[in-house]
């Protein structure tokens, strides 16, 4: 097994999970976000079972000295709750609420060949590059 094979397999499994749970369907996401409407808690159960698997798997993995194909585990080092985290999360939430898509389902939906998804995908890329640009200017 190589890192590339794990990447492809991981991506396909992740996408299959999104498809089976219908999380690639924005109406399903809207049903969860619309608490004042016909509320659909399915997304909470997707998160719950994902969290249980990861919480166990993560701790089992860390009992090993290193990952199978690398010399170290790569974990976030920033522990500060700063304005970037807060403002970024809020802005992401506004976008998520407007369209019912977060990044994973956007990627999976590219496989459905819809013009609307392409618009969302390229707008997301522009948003990411805009942040990179602003952030690099700020640092330099």
């Amino acid at each position, binding site marked *: 097994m190589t*890192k*590339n094979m*794990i*990447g*492809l397999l*991981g*991506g*396909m*499994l*992740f*996408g299959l999970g*999104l*498809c*089976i*749970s*219908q999380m690639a369907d*924005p109406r399903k996401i*809207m049903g969860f976000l619309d608490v*004042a409407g016909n509320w*659909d*808690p*399915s997304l909470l159960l*997707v*998160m719950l079972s*994902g969290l249980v*698997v*990861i919480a166990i*798997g993560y701790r089992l*993995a860390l009992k090993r000295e290193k990952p*199978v194909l*690398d010399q170290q585990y790569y*974990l*976030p080092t*920033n522990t*500060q709750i700063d304005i970037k*985290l807060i*403002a*970024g*999360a*809020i*802005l*992401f*939430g*506004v976008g998520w*609420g*407007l*369209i019912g898509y*977060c*990044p*994973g389902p956007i990627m*999976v939906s590219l*496989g*459905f060949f*819809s013009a609307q998804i392409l618009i969302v995908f390229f*707008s997301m890329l*522009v*948003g990411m590059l*805009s942040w*990179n640009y602003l*952030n690099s200017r700020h640092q330099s």
Partner: protein
Amino acid sequence: MDHFTPFSALIGGGLIGIAMILLFWFNGRIAGISGLIGGLFSRNTDDKSWRILFLAGLVLSGFIYHLYDPGIYSGMPVTSTPVLILGGFLVGFGTRMGNGCTSGHGLFGIARFSKRSIVATLLFISSAMVTVYLVQHMFGASL
């Protein structure tokens, strides 16, 4: 709650969890989707090939699943192009600024008991719910 689908939600969520653990167990990496995409545009990112293949796997799974069940894609709730552009932009900008999205913060971060991820997840779910409330119930979903 007539649209509630508990079993497919639990199975799908479990598969997503297994996929993230697979990548962590073998490659030592957290599969945050916004981070994987955003990292492709950074000169500091090493070994980009597995990242590209992970993202390709996402697209491929959608393509294959759509062949098996075309009903998985049935159009969007919001169809106006300006809203799609604005929403997509905010998803991209916000996830990079806040360093994560539903997968990196919402799943892996919370499972690690990261305070940053717990705060981020509560914030983006809340702001999304407020946004949907305003659009659906104050402006009559006419965007």
